[in-house]
């Protein structure tokens, strides 16, 4: 569903130097699978996800969603992908219902179909009590759920989330991950980037660890973690080994 092949993204910094943000990353996420993209700050996670979300053009390699290439046909990718970025906010002066409605219209939904879709999202995300309150007055957890709902309004088969729990407390993070697990079980392909490993250790089917713009480890939890260890130790080991190289 989500396929990244030999992805390279270089850009020039303000001082003119070339930054190799992503330097040959490859991985795939199948339908009904949740994959964790792990890496420290500056590892290249956000850049990879932005290329997938058609917000950045790759320097080389490809990123595709449901067979559509992000560079060649960005509009087709956007119709098949839901994207929640690390810095995603919600418009303060609109209510969750209005936010879902406006993005539904952008995706060609209208009338009863749109109203039905908005009602389902409000119910499924537990936003019933605040669906008609301006988003500026919602809690961080509620706002993040609105953000996820906005990405789901067109029912995309693939979902990409960049640090979705970073602004949430423990309960908010658990609720959100419950929602994502439900979506995975319903057949969505989900790619989640995070550096809060303990939250997703038992939730994701597979993990891809990137460091310095390259994949340094990939596999299921059991493949990455040795007997008696945990994901955090495995992550540090992979990153340290890559650093030593």
């Amino acid at each position, binding site marked *: 569903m989500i396929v990244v092949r030999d992805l390279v993204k270089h850009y020039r910094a303000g001082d*003119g130097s070339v930054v190799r943000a992503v330097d040959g990353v490859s991985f795939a996420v199948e339908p009904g699978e949740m994959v964790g993209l792990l890496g420290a700050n500056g590892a290249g996670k956000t850049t990879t996800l932005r290329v997938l*979300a*058609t917000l950045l053009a790759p320097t080389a390699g490809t990123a595709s969603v449901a067979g559509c290439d992000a560079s060649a046909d960005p509009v087709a990718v956007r119709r098949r992908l839901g994207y929640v970025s690390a810095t995603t906010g919600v418009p303060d002066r*609109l209510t969750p219902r*209005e936010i879902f409605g*406006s993005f539904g219209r*952008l995706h060609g939904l209208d009338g009863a*179909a749109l109203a039905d879709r908005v009602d389902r999202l409000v119910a499924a995300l537990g936003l019933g009590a605040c669906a008609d309150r301006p988003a500026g007055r919602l809690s961080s957890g509620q706002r993040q759920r609105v953000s996820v709902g906005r990405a789901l309004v067109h029912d995309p088969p693939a979902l990409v989330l960049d640090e979705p729990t970073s602004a949430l407390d423990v309960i908010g993070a658990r609720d959100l991950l419950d929602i994502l697990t439900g979506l995975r079980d*319903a057949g969505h392909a989900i790619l989640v980037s995070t550096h809060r490993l303990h939250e997703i250790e038992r939730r994701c089917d597979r993990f891809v660890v990137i460091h310095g713009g390259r994949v340094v480890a990939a596999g299921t939890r059991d493949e990455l973690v040795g007997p008696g260890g945990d994901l955090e130790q495995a992550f540090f080991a992979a990153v340290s080994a890559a650093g030593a190289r």
Partner: protein
Amino acid sequence: MTDPIPPAAAPGRFTAALAIARRDLVEFVRDRRTLFVTLLLPMVTYPIVALASALGLRTAVADIESRAATATLAVAVTGAEALPFAERLRAAAASPPRGGPAAADWPAGFEIEPLPDPVANRALASGAADVVVDAPAGTLAALDGDGTATVTARLSTSRDAEPGAARLWEALVANVAADTLARRARGAGLPRAFLEPLRVTFPDGPAAAPVAPSIGPTLVGSVLVLLAVLTLTGAFYPAIDAIAGEKERGTIETLLMAPCSTLQIVLGKFLAVFAITLATLAANVLSIAATGAAAVRMLPAGMSMEIAHPSAGSLATLVAFVGLAAIAAATCLAVTTASKSGKEAQNTLTPVILLVSALAGTALLPGLRGKAWLAAVPFAGQIVVSRLALVGAEGPAPGLPVPVLVALSLASAGALTALLLQGTALLLADEDILFRGPDAAPHGLARPARRKVPSVAQGAIPVVAGLALVWYLQGLAPGDLRLSIPLHQGIAVILPLVAMLAWQRVDTRTTLGLSFPGRGPRGAVTLVGAGLIGAGLFFLSAALLLALGGGDGSPAVRDLTRRLLDLLGNTPWWLSAVLMVLLPAVAEEALYRGWVLAAFAGVSPSRGRAVAAVAAQAVVFALAHLLPERMPATFALGLATGALRVLTGSILPSIVLHAVHNAVPLVLVAMAGGPGGEQLAEIATGGATRLPPAVVAAAALAVVVGAGLVGFAARRWDRGRSPVR
């Protein structure tokens, strides 16, 4: 939630734009700042302005009337014939003139006294006497005979003297002369009618004849400029909120993920901002209408606000200003797109609003009102057309009917809006602008972080600083161009640029393009091509200027032309070359094609951003030249030099192009001694009324050949070395 939803139909061409516009509009109207600026500001502004103006007018009229009613002229007469001449003056003062200019200046009373010299001098010094007249021996004899009596008069410089004493004294002297003339005519046996060859009577009584003076035409110009500025203000907050606000709130990425082109997103944003701007325009118009109706009652008696075509003129104004609202919305959007936050957008947009307000003000310049092409100039054109529609032509008419001018203004507004939206779409999708970090300094005096080239905002700073310096120092500018050209270049161009280069830590070589445009023949071919374009461009610009507005320019342009001709005629050729060719070419290219263009384009720009940067710096270059008539030519020069810089990566071809462009007048004046010299001199200084078709054709050929040479050399140019490509 995850049930399959009915497959959504692909959004129509404008579905996405309309959905975005609808969403933004809901957001705007829930923002109290926007509502205040849109609706309340005009409702408050016009009544305040009207009240202040009406009160000022009433006070001024009352002041003038009371002065005229109470003015008294104190005259001290000295000299050998002080006594009889004073009597003669008293006689003239006792019989005020029945008509003519003297009657209008007749004071309420006279105090005429013969005084000894020392007393008269003291009175003059203290202001007790407004005038001291010395009547020498023989004055009366000359008056009563047929000679000319010569008296000397001195006016008091004391603050206590009557301010209009000179005028009143002249009125009295004119009356003495009229009395004397009548007496001489009687003495010569001439009939009384001899001195009055024409008399005008008003059969309906004098009250019906003079029309009440109307301040309408004068007022219309100022109100239209205010309307333009306030309409622009209506776009201010919505535009900031529309894109910079989305970036600040972190919602722009979600919008860019919409299944439509960036242009459709920009179109949606534009529609929302345009709608608010139109609402501002409507609120302004309503406020003007209501205030106008109330203000009529506040006018001093005998004054009106009548205008020639209130109904048709208002309709034309409304239509023209819809175009202005569109450009205002598109301009504000385009300017704020490069900003990361609302505050940054506000800082960028404020100087632009001031610059555009100045452009709107140029519509009222006396020499420009009759020019048809001005209708196509954004912000100024709408005012020119509306003013013409409301009060009619006051000087030479533009030669086109008002509906055609309105259509021309609308077409120009539409085309410019479309271009601005395209540019905004290019900027919005630009990765560097979208994802760059905030421009923040650790404290106020810290130098900015080291960069390869300046940021977009840093790019505009020296231009704005230069214009501000020119404005504040204009009072000190000498009239002599030999001094004022270097002074102007120094404070408007060189000083801001040097200050920025010293302060900002940028790569000077990359920013200013300090490299040779290719090795060996390739570089030489590029420079020759640039020179040809420069020469051709001068004549094409001159032809365009003539086609647009004829030979007679505004007083400002005529004055500049006269001074340029004077400079060329009275200065050694090498000094003219330094002042008109070398200095502007090097300094302006370093600032505009170096600093500004590098900032607007960024490091390794996409094709779209490079095009937008060249166009934007050309607009800034044209605006910075301040004279509206010169703007099309300077814009074309900016485009050509900017394209060369981007294409070759070097500043040198741009300098050569600019230098040759500016050198043409010098060459023409040097050749002006030969056959057809006068015409050449006129072309050189922009004073010509037409250009021979052969000259225009040759100029076009030079530009085509020059562009061909540059293109040929640039294709073979090592692309990796160009920093602004």
